[in-house]
C-alpha cells in the first residue's frame, strides 16, 4: 500500500518530542563538557553527534516521511536564535535542506542514506562553534574580554579554531563520531525497536 506523504498528528507529536529530546541531549552534553576548555572546544560536538545519532535514526525511521530533518534543524536553529545567535537559524535551515536532499527518495528506508544524512549533519554542526569565530570575531572577542578573559587566554582558548591542524582534527573527529553514531543507531534500531514492533 502506498503511504501518504502528508503528516499526521502522530508524526507531528513524534517529531516534536524526539526533537526536544535531541536538543536536550545536545545542551546537557555541551554543559557537562564546559567543565574543561579542551573537551568543550574540541570534543563536545563529536560526543553530541555520537549520542544523538540513535535518536535521529529512530525519529526518521518512525515518521517515515520527508521534512523530518528540516523540522529538527529549524527548531534547533530557533533555539540558537533565542540564545542570541540569529545567524545559526538560516545556517541550520540550509543544513536541514541538505539532509532532506540526501533523504529525498525514500531515504528513511535506507540505512546508507540515513548514515550519510547524519554524517553530513555532524560535519555541518561544527558551525555552532566555528561561525561566531570566523564571521563574528569582533563580537566574540569583545564578549570574551567582557567576561574577564585576558588576551593571551582568549588566544589560547580560540587557537583550536584558528590553527589549521586543530581545525582539521575537530572536523574529522566530529564527522567520524557522527558516522560511528549512525552505525550504533542503525544497530540499536535493528536490535530493539524493530523487534519491539514500534517501527
Amino acid at each position, binding site marked *: 500500500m502506498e503511504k501518504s506523504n502528508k503528516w499526521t*498528528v502522530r508524526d*507531528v*507529536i513524534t517529531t*516534536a518530542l*524526539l526533537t526536544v529530546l535531541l536538543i536536550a541531549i545536545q545542551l546537557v552534553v555541551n554543559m557537562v563538557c*564546559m567543565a574543561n576548555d579542551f573537551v568543550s572546544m574540541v570534543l563536545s560536538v563529536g560526543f553530541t553527534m555520537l549520542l544523538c545519532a540513535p535518536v535521529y535514526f529512530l525519529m526518521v525511521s518512525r515518521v517515515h516521511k520527508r521534512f523530518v530533518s528540516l523540522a529538527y534543524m529549524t527548531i534547533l536553529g530557533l533555539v540558537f536564535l533565542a*540564545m542570541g545567535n540569529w545567524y545559526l537559524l538560516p545556517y541550520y535551515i540550509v543544513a536541514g535542506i541538505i539532509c532532506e536532499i540526501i533523504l529525498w527518495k525514500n531515504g528513511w528506508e535506507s540505512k546508507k542514506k540515513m548514515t550519510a544524512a547524519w554524517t553530513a549533519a555532524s560535519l555541518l554542526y561544527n558551525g555552532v562553534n566555528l561561525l561566531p569565530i570566523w564571521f563574528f570575531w569582533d563580537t566574540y572577542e569583545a564578549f570574551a574580554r*567582557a*567576561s574577564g*578573559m585576558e588576551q593571551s587566554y582568549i588566544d589560547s582558548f580560540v587557537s583550536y579554531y584558528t590553527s589549521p591542524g586543530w581545525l582539521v582534527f575537530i572536523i574529522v573527529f566530529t564527522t567520524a563520531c557522527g558516522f560511528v553514531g549512525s552505525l550504533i543507531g542503525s544497530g540499536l534500531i535493528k536490535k530493539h525497536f524493530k523487534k519491539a514492533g514500534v517501527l
Partner: protein
Amino acid sequence: MQCKNLAVAVKLWALLCAIIGISLTSDTVLTCVLSVLGFAYLATQKNRRLLCSFGIFYIFLAALLYLIRFHNLHMVIFSEFYVLMFWNLSPVFIVAWDLITTPPGELSAFLSRIHMPTPIILGLLVMFRFFPTMKAELKSVVRSMRNRRLTALGQVLCHPAASCEYVIVPLLLRCLQIADQLSVSALARGADYPGVRGSYYGKALDWRDGLWFTLWTVGTAAFLLVGGVRL
C-alpha cells in the same frame, strides 16, 4: 500560594523583548537590567518557586562574575566565557521558563485564537510539556536499573556503552509510547477539526497585562539605548 499568570500574549512579548535585548546589546554585563525586570515579572505572577531557583542561580553567577572581573579569578574547571554567557542569557531563561510552565490550556487557547496552524500548536504543547514528562520517565528508568543493580559505579565505569544503552533504549521506547498516547488523546479531543478551539482556561487581557506589555517594551528600548546596539 497560587500563581497569577499573565496572559500568554504578554509572555510571548516578554520573550521576544528579552531575545531582542540580548541579541542586539553591545554591553553584555548590563543585561542584568533585563534580568531584574524578569525577576520583577516573576514576582508579579507570584511564581515563587521559579523566582527562588533562578534567584539563587543568578546570585551565584553574579558572585562568580564579580570575582572574575575584580579579583582575577581563573577557574580550572569552568571558563569565564561561560559564566558571562549564562549571565547574558539569564533574562531569556527566566522568561522562557515562565512561558514553558504556563498551563497548556491557556497556551492552546491563545494560539488557536490567533489562528496558528494545528500542527504548530500541537508541536509547541508537546515541547513545553517535555521536561516534566521526561523527568518522570528518566526517574523510572533509573529506578528499574537500580533494581537490577545496574547503577553501581563499577558497573557504569566498566560498561559505559551498555549503561548508555540501558538508559536510552527504554527512554526512547517510552517516548514513542507517549507520542502515540498523545496522538490518540489529541485526535479524541478534535485536533483534526478545523474550527477555532476554545478553552476553559483562556483569559482576557487585564490592566496587569497592559502594564507588563508596556514595561517590557520600554525596559528593552531603554536598555538598548543606554547599553548601545551592535549590528
